[in-house]
């Protein structure tokens, strides 16, 4: 049985972006904080050595930085009529492990969600009519708004050193930035990265077509940057080993390059790594979290009592911990009652590949988040009247680096092996580029998370089961935005294009996106949400669950900027509201 440890003021589960930010804020407010992390302590100096980090076999093929599926995985199915099977090798998404979490191997794209997103249902009903939203979508408002979110986006960008060009400052619109973004209180902390050739070419064409291209906001810093915690980052070198890799140049923002070096020095913080949390403990009526139980690397169980419990793991583990700890009511798709597991959503990834004869893109020059994008076809930036769908995508060229094993751009009709395949690789490696469209994924009553009835992890707990498929809304949207993207591609005058709109059913094997969201969503109504706008669990006031699990649906943007902002928002809720009347739901 678990050995009971001395109590602490707050325990934070997960030391990725969200957990590290919250722990640091609580520690600075004077609380004694214990951080618990299931993976190892990761550190740039020790783990991401520049002499050895550019190893595609180790990091990309063998997924070194990702959670071991033998430790914990998910099961998946497209709909309730199927029996879910476990994912034994990460395919569709790449959950992280260790301090820094998935934030070590992320790409670094750091959008803010648009103001309309936080009241999406209200916004669409106002613009298109009260009954315009189809039955298959369970879109919701977030219970917060832009004015409440903006300061926390700003705080996150200053921690991460995010590079970019403002398109909309409170003082007025700015040429060259994203005209669709919400009004910003300040510009990006560092200027945009310099652009490689393919995004430059894309932006020129997009501009000719009347669109307004802008540098993709990126938490790869463009110049040396020291953040408010005193931690210094070095400028991105476009090394091309970025997504799926840790950064050796201290250029890619993550908890380990921006927060933990300062946090770990503080006396009232303690990190326990290789400790996997089994459950949140509650008092007899379930209205107060009393702490957590975790198992260490030697298999011993420990109970850590705490006055405040913060769950800040990856989306999947946040939801599974709530289900295994009986927090809230598990979602039932038939009755549509219950909120734990509700509104799971994903991302709809589309692309258009362009084969040229006369171009050399030097595609090995790359970074997870360097590029140019347009937002004319994202979210509700265009009129959806009569289109038969809602949502849209962020259209952009972001050359991540064409690595030796994986980068084999060959046109349709090329054999998949042999001398002709090799010849085609040589012919097309340098002259191929692609335009991506990272599009929204709108939640549906049929897509949800639950505990698997069959498969269990090494500790005997049920795996999390994903029941998910793309909705008709999303598939129609995918066709539309991909055609718009293809129009730009054709205008760029390549020899050949290959358009790949997302088609159903959801296939868990090819990588698509690690942007898994929802399942423990935020909102103003306890009937349809699990946490309030401070990420405080309804009816369990000293429990906060933070991360992309709180998104009620997923817009056509990458989630990390919003995860960071929500972490600051939760910390603000705890420090400036909860601690004034502990044990109560925050009412303001």
């Amino acid at each position: 049985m678990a050995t009971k440890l001395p109590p602490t003021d707050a325990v934070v589960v997960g030391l990725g972006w969200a957990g590290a930010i919250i722990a640091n804020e609580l520690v600075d407010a004077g609380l004694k904080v214990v951080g618990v992390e299931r993976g190892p302590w990761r550190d740039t100096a020790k783990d991401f050595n520049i002499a050895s980090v550019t190893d595609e076999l180790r990091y990309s093929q063998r997924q070194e930085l990702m959670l071991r599926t033998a430790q914990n995985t998910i099961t998946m199915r497209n709909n309730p009529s199927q029996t879910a099977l476990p994912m034994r090798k990460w395919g569709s998404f790449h959950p992280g492990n260790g301090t820094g979490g998935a934030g070590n191997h992320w790409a670094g794209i750091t959008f803010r969600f648009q103001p309309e997103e936080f009241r999406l249902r209200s916004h669409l009903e106002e613009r298109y009519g009260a009954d315009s939203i189809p039955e298959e979508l369970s879109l919701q408002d977030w219970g917060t708004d832009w004015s409440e979110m903006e300061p926390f986006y700003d705080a996150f960008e200053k921690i991460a050193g995010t590079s970019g060009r403002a398109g909309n400052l409170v003082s007025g619109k700015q040429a060259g930035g994203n005209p669709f973004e919400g009004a910003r209180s300040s510009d990006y902390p560092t200027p945009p990265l310099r652009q490689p050739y393919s995004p430059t070419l894309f932006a020129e064409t997009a501009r000719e077509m009347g669109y307004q291209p802008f540098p993709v906001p990126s938490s790869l810093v463009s110049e040396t940057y020291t953040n408010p915690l005193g931690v210094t980052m070095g400028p991105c070198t476009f090394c091309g080993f970025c997504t799926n890799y840790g950064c050796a140049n201290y250029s890619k923002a993550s908890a380990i390059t921006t927060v933990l070096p300062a946090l770990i020095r503080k006396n009232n913080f303690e990190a326990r790594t290789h400790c996997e949390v089994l459950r949140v403990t509650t008092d007899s009526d379930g209205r107060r979290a009393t702490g957590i139980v975790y198992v260490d690397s030697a298999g011993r169980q420990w109970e850590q009592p705490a006055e405040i419990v913060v769950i800040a793991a990856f989306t999947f583990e946040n939801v599974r911990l709530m289900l295994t700890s009986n927090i809230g009511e598990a979602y039932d798709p038939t009755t549509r009652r219950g909120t734990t597991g509700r509104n799971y959503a994903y991302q709809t990834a589309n692309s258009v590949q362009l084969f040229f004869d006369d171009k050399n893109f030097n595609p090995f020059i790359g970074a997870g988040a360097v590029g140019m994008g347009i937002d004319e076809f994202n979210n509700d930036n265009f009129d959806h009247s009569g289109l038969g769908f809602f949502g849209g995508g962020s259209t952009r060229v972001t050359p991540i680096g064409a690595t030796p094993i994986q980068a084999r751009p060959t046109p349709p009709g090329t054999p998949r092996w042999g001398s002709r395949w090799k010849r085609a690789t040589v012919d097309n490696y340098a002259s191929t580029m692609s335009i991506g469209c990272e599009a929204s994924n709108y939640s549906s009553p049929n897509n949800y998370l639950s505990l698997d009835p069959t498969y269990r992890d090494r500790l005997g707990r049920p795996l999390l089961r994903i029941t998910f498929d793309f909705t008709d809304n999303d598939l129609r949207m995918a066709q539309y935005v991909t055609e718009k993207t293809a129009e730009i591609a054709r205008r760029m005058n390549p020899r050949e294009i290959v358009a790949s709109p997302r088609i159903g059913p959801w296939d868990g094997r090819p990588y698509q996106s690690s942007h898994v969201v929802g399942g423990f969503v935020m909102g103003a109504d306890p009937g349809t949400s699990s946490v309030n706008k401070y990420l405080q669990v309804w009816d369990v006031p000293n429990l906060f669950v933070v991360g992309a699990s709180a998104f009620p649906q997923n817009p056509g943007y990458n989630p990390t900027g919003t995860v960071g902002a929500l972490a600051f928002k939760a910390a603000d809720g705890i420090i400036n509201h909860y601690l004034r009347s502990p044990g109560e739901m925050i009412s303001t």
Partner: protein
Amino acid sequence: MKTLMGLSLTGVALLPLSIWAASTEYQDIERGRYISVLGDCAACHTADDSQPFSGGVALETPFGTLVAPNITPDPETGLGRWRYEDFKAAMTEGIGKGGYHLYPAMPYPSYTLMPEKDIHDLWSYLQTVTPVENDVEANQLPFPFSIRQVMMGWNWLNFDEKTFEPDPEQSDEINRGAYLVESLGHCGTCHTPRNFMGGEGGDKFAGATIEGWYAPNITPNAHIGIGGWSEDELVEYLQTGGNRFDFASGPMADEVHHSSQHWTDDDLYAVARYLLSGAGLESDDWDREPPEPLSEDNAQVRAGSHIYFDRCSGCHTSDGGGEYGIFPQLASNPVVNGDNTSSLIRVVLAGSRPVATDAKPTAPAMPSFAWNLSDEEIASVLTFVRNSWGNAAAAVSPGDVADMREALTGE
């Protein structure tokens, strides 16, 4: 308090004993605590941060191993049975209680300069630390160095017992800096080459090897010393562990961690002003003309330039300018230009993790290239770096790299 401390100390040496001997006030003890920080007592006497001053840090000397003793007030294993006079004799004469000779790994040749008020306050502070029972076998030297009487002859040749005398020609600040550098800071212990007996010889502050690291030249020479650093840059280094040229690593990382990051601004600027003035140096030998750089056609320089652009320029930049606050500037860097290349070779082979401080928590690391650069390649790239962007210094030989590689492998 900071200002008061900085301004008053030089005068304090002249105060008559009777003013402070009567009682030990809180401020004396606090002052003694700060003196223990200035003297970096913890560097040797604290092996375990949870048991300060209980000894146990092993010092590898050319003569064998010495272990710093327990200086907590524990009666059996520490200084519990010592009287103030015993402590004073240890600090100023190198004589322990009962008359035995200390080895000069204990920097009594520097501490002898301390005014009595400072010794007494330090003693008062040490009386207040928690007694820890920890029996340390200090003398682990081999015969004949294990015979402490050999130190009598050493002292006769290498040691002068004398209290610090301020130079009336110099400002109070320079005098304060002199006292800190020569006595409590004992900078020369590492930075001045030692003679064959392990005493500080000539070439004061010209740089010396200690524990496999090269403690660089800290004379005002602009090429190989710190003459190109501003006072602000020197203070930044001592206070935060890094400036645009360098991050403290190896034994200097310990010094910043335990000691100089906690010094007052006034004391740090006094040290900077004193060191950069050259006031403590007896001759102008440090003021040498830099050599001519090796030609770009030199085979090592040419090979090294390719290695540099492939392996090094991503961080240190193609013009050797580095990135302030994270990647040291190699151009005009005195460590790069220095006569002794052991630290340079060491960081390329073994990598290096500098000290993290509250002011600079990042501690950016230099990775190890031992596994994918040969001795010849490392010698070439260092030769290139030492002769580019205004740098000029002798070529590095592959044999030196091989020797260091062997020494590190044996560690």
